[in-house]
């Protein structure tokens, strides 16, 4: 697959260059705002942040890996934490699960039978779901940093 960061870009689309070039305060402010939007978009829909920057292969792989982890985790009847947790671990699990963005709702829709962690598969499923969330947060952060002009 061709690397998307090699392709030539228009002057306004230089967000993937290796280092940040000094710009006017207005340009910097605009870039920062765009970076936030890209970061949030990447969190809401896995891969969307990279897609907005035309980093197609990274966008596709983020979408597929996070999506597959969510589908497998829900299919294995992993525990999808809710906001009504009893302790700190539940709260951390909820934060991790929320990291999948809109895929959290997909996992909820897939788990029609509810969680079943009485067997190893369900426990693995819980880890798959949490990992999908953390991985998506990492991906969104990567997109944000790339949009700011950091090395990506």
């Amino acid at each position, binding site marked *: *697959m*061709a*690397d998307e*960061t*090699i392709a030539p870009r228009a002057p306004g689309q230089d967000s993937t260059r290796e280092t940040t070039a000094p710009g006017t305060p207005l340009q910097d402010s605009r870039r920062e705002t765009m970076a936030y939007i890209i970061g949030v978009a990447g969190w809401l829909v896995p891969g969307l942040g990279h897609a907005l920057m035309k980093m197609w*292969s*990274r966008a596709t*792989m*983020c979408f597929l*890996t*996070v999506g*597959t*982890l969510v*589908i*497998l985790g*829900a*299919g*294995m*009847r992993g525990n999808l934490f809710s906001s009504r947790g009893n302790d700190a671990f539940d709260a951390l699990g909820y934060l991790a699960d929320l990291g999948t963005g809109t895929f959290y709702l997909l996992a909820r829709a*897939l*788990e*029609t*039978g509810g969680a*079943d962690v009485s067997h*190893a*598969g*369900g426990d*693995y*499923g819980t*880890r*798959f779901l949490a*990992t999908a969330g953390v*991985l998506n947060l*990492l*991906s969104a952060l*990567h997109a944000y940093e790339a949009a700011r002009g950091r090395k990506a």
Partner: protein
Amino acid sequence: MNAGMGLKLSHLQSMLLFALLISIAFGFLSRRQPIERVKYIVWSLLLFLLIGVGIGWAMYPFSR
């Protein structure tokens, strides 16, 4: 897919799938060139499996 039925995977299958998916994601996020990505993915996958099996064997004496 009917998730209500529950997907049945063995321990090894779960670990393999997990390691493969995470390795692919890491490879694509941290490397630019395709050849570098493949090298990173293979290396990461091998380490995941090696360390996973290693930890499994390290816990074996305490399992009984």
